[in-house]
Structure formats: C-alpha cells, structure tokens
C-alpha cells in the first residue's frame, strides 16, 4: 500500500485526459441534441443522448461552421474527441464538426476526406506546378459526350488552336466513374506524342447535382491527381461547386471553359504583340538608315574631292547593294528615304568620271598628283603626265605648252 503512488487531483485529471484522448482518438458519434446553450464567447454547448446515455458536447468558436442551427431534439453527427475538462474533472466531447444527419452526410464525408488529405500534404502549395505559357499538347479527361468537352474545345479553338488536344474519355458520374477517371488520368500522364509528354491535363465535367459530382470527391482520384507526372487542372461543375480534386490539382478552374482559358495564351493578343514588334523593328531600322545616309553623304562629299575614282566605285557598289535590298521591302516603295537614296545614286552616276571617258574624253594629271589638269599652264615642258582613258593609261612627256 505504501509503495503505491498517490496522485494529486490535477495529476489524475491530466492522466485521465491523456488516456481518453489517445485511447479513442478522433471519432464520429451520432445522437439526439438536448440542452443547447450558446455562450457569450461564441462556443456552443449541448448534450447528446440516446435511450440509455448522455454526454456533454463542446464546439469551440472558430471551428468549421455548423451548416444548420443545432436545436433540441435534432439527430446529429459529431466528429471530434472525448476528453476531460481538467479544472472540473468533467468528461466531455470536443466536437470539430457537427452535422445534421441525412442531408449533411455527404458533406461530412467530404470534410473528413478533405481534412485527412490536407494533413497528408496532398494540398501542399509547394507540390503545385506551374503551367507552360505556350502548351502544345493538351490532355482532357472527361466524358466524350458532355457539355464540358464542348466548352473546352470551343475555347481552345478560339484562343489557341496551335495546340493539339488529346481526349481521354471516361464516364464522370455513377459507380464506375472514379475508377475510370483514375485510369484515364493515368493514361494521360504516361501518354507521349512523338516522344513528348502532354504539357498538362484538364480533368473535369459540367455542372450537376451534388451527387453527380461525387466522383471528383473520390479518394482514389484525389491520390491519382497528386501522383500525376503532368500538371492537372481541376474543372468540376460551376464556380460554386467545390470538389476534392480542386484542392489536390495544380490549378483549380471554376468551370471547364475557364480551365481552357487558364491554360492557353490568346492568339489575338499574340497577333497584336507581333504587330507592335514589327513597328519597333521599322522605327529601329529607319533610325539606322537615316544615320547611315547622313554618314554616306558626308563621306561621299569628302571622297569626291579627294580620290574620285576608287572611292566612288566602292561607295557606289555599297549603295547598289543597299538600294537593291531596300527595294525588296514590301513597304519600301513609298518610303521617302528610299527616294533619297535613289537620288544619291543618280548624283553618283552623273559625277562618275568614267562616264565621259567612255565617250572618248580623257583625264590628264601630272605624274605624282591626283589633281586633273584643267589648264595647259598647269604643266611645263619636260614634265611627265599621265592620261586616263576609258581603258588603260598613257604616260607621256610634255614637249610644248600652248596657252589659249
């Protein structure tokens, strides 16, 4: 007796609490509501009873909302854990969910699965993948006859027909639907076209009654979405409908059409941006041409003075190249810059010293100088001169100078 442990009151309550909480864990319990009271704190207190027994229930403020008002005599399902309120040593049940039996059952199961998968990390934002900007291969897992497919194809056809669509047909409601959806999603995940996997897959269906959307709340499907090697977009029902796949998927779309919009760029916007870029290209090249033309004119002036022939030949050749290329531009004909370049070309031709040579004229200069002789007085008897003909040169010595 002496070596038996003596507990304090608080030790016993603490131990009892621990045993209860760990021994039973979280459970569902069904019963009839009695003695409801709402404390000023916002916590809800009531009792739950059946024909033989009764237990106090607490639902703390801030937990999942109660879908319907809890009233005396109602039959409800509660989810939570049995525990001991230590300061009073009172045995009670702390409920995290309170659901009226019947209509609430589906929802309760939904919440339960959602919480379970959330705790497992299936909704983890870090697991969610980014979608490619320009998808080339888009998978769609849905009914081949449903409104969802029709909506998705309409949007893809308008916005991004560049992409190819691969449909993985499946039923989307009924008992077989979850397994079929899992299989179709698996096929989409491992599918390759030309060795390339799909960029993403849209998983969805159109709107319907809550029971019709139930396949998308299936735990197997949720896990298949999580395991998918390619990004999954969940698009189930209308925007008010929420399914488990919405939480697991990489992206949740409010409707199937919205999913198709979310995953594609708009070709009209891209066409606009192409137009803007072409405009930028044109201003840039125009600026470059203006600068080049200015440089060309000033160097032309300088070269005509200094060294007429060689420089003019090379410049002219360059100009020919530019003019030919510029003439190739679609819009170039109306461009005043082109006209100015043509003009410059004409000027060059007129000033080309070779033209007169072809008609029998010649240019003469004193050997050692580039300055053409214009007057006989510029040479003296005995000096060496060179005459440039259309073909070849003559070197001669001046015998006599006659001034006119």
């Amino acid at each position, binding site marked *: 007796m002496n070596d038996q442990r003596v507990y304090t009151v608080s030790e016993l309550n603490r131990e009892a609490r621990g045993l209860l909480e760990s021994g039973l864990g979280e459970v569902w319990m069904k019963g009839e509501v009695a003695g409801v009271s709402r404390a000023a704190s916002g916590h809800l207190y009531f009792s739950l009873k059946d024909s033989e027994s009764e237990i106090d229930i607490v639902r703390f403020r801030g937990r999942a909302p109660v879908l319907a008002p809890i009233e005396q005599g109602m039959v409800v399902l509660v989810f939570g854990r049995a525990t001991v309120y230590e300061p009073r040593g009172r045995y009670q049940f702390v409920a995290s969910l309170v659901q009226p039996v019947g209509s609430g059952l589906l929802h309760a199961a939904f919440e339960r699965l959602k919480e379970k998968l959330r705790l497992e990390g299936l909704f983890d934002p870090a697991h969610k993948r980014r979608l490619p*900007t*320009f998808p*080339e291969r888009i998978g769609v897992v849905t009914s*081949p006859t449903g409104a969802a497919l029709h909506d998705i*194809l309409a949007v*893809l*056809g308008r916005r991004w*027909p*560049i*992409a*190819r*669509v*691969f*449909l*993985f*047909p499946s039923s989307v409601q009924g008992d077989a639907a979850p397994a079929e959806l899992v*299989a179709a999603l698996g*096929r*989409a995940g491992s*599918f390759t*076209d030309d060795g390339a996997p799909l960029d993403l897959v849209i998983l969805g269906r159109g709107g319907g009654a809550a029971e019709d959307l139930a396949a998308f709340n299936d735990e197997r499907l949720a896990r298949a979405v999580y395991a998918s090697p390619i990004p999954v977009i969940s698009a189930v029902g209308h925007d008010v409908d929420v399914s488990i796949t919405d939480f697991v998927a990489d992206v949740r779309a409010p409707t199937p059409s919205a999913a198709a919009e979310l995953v594609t760029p708009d*070709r009209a916007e*891209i*066409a606009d*941006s*192409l*137009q803007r*870029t*072409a405009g*930028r*290209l*044109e201003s*840039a*090249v125009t*600026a*470059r*041409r203006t*600068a*080049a033309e200015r440089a060309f004119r000033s160097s032309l002036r300088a070269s005509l003075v200094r060294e007429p022939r060689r420089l003019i030949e090379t410049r002219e050749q360059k100009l020919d*190249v*530019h003019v030919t*290329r*510029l003439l*190739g*531009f*679609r819009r170039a004909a109306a461009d005043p810059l082109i006209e100015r370049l043509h003009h410059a070309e004409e000027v060059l031709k007129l000033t080309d010293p070779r033209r007169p040579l072809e008609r029998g004229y010649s240019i003469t200069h004193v050997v050692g100088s580039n300055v053409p002789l214009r007057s006989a007085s510029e040479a003296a008897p005995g000096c060496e001169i060179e005459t440039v003909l259309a073909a070849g040169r003559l070197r001669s010595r001046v015998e006599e100078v006659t001034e006119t």
Partner: protein
Amino acid sequence: MKIEEALAKLEEITARLERGELPLDEAIGLFEEGLALAAAAKKDLDAARLRIDQVIEQAKGTLSVEPFDVS
C-alpha cells in the same frame, strides 16, 4: 519554327536593332529577318485549326490514337 521560338527570336532581333550599333547591312538583314519571322508567326496563328484526337485503351496496355469527331 514554333511560335514560342519565333517570338523569342523576334524579341532578340528587335532588341539588337534598337541598340542601334550595328553596321547598316547587318541592321537591314536583321530587319528583314524580323519581319519575315513576324509574318510567318502571324500566318501560323491565323491558319491554325484545332486538332483533336481520342486516346483509347484497346487491349490492356495498348493505346490507340484516332481523330475525334467533334460534331
């Protein structure tokens, strides 16, 4: 060329041309290349028609890909 690549290339060309340091023939060459790229991309965008195939499991493990009739 894929639209994505064409857009990236076009952006690169435009940026180079806008820096304005290139010799004239190179600038004109880039301009031509850029316009051609933009025109080709626009043509691809306009001409594209959505292609839809259906992937069905024929026997265990064998998939068939066939055109899906939209109507």
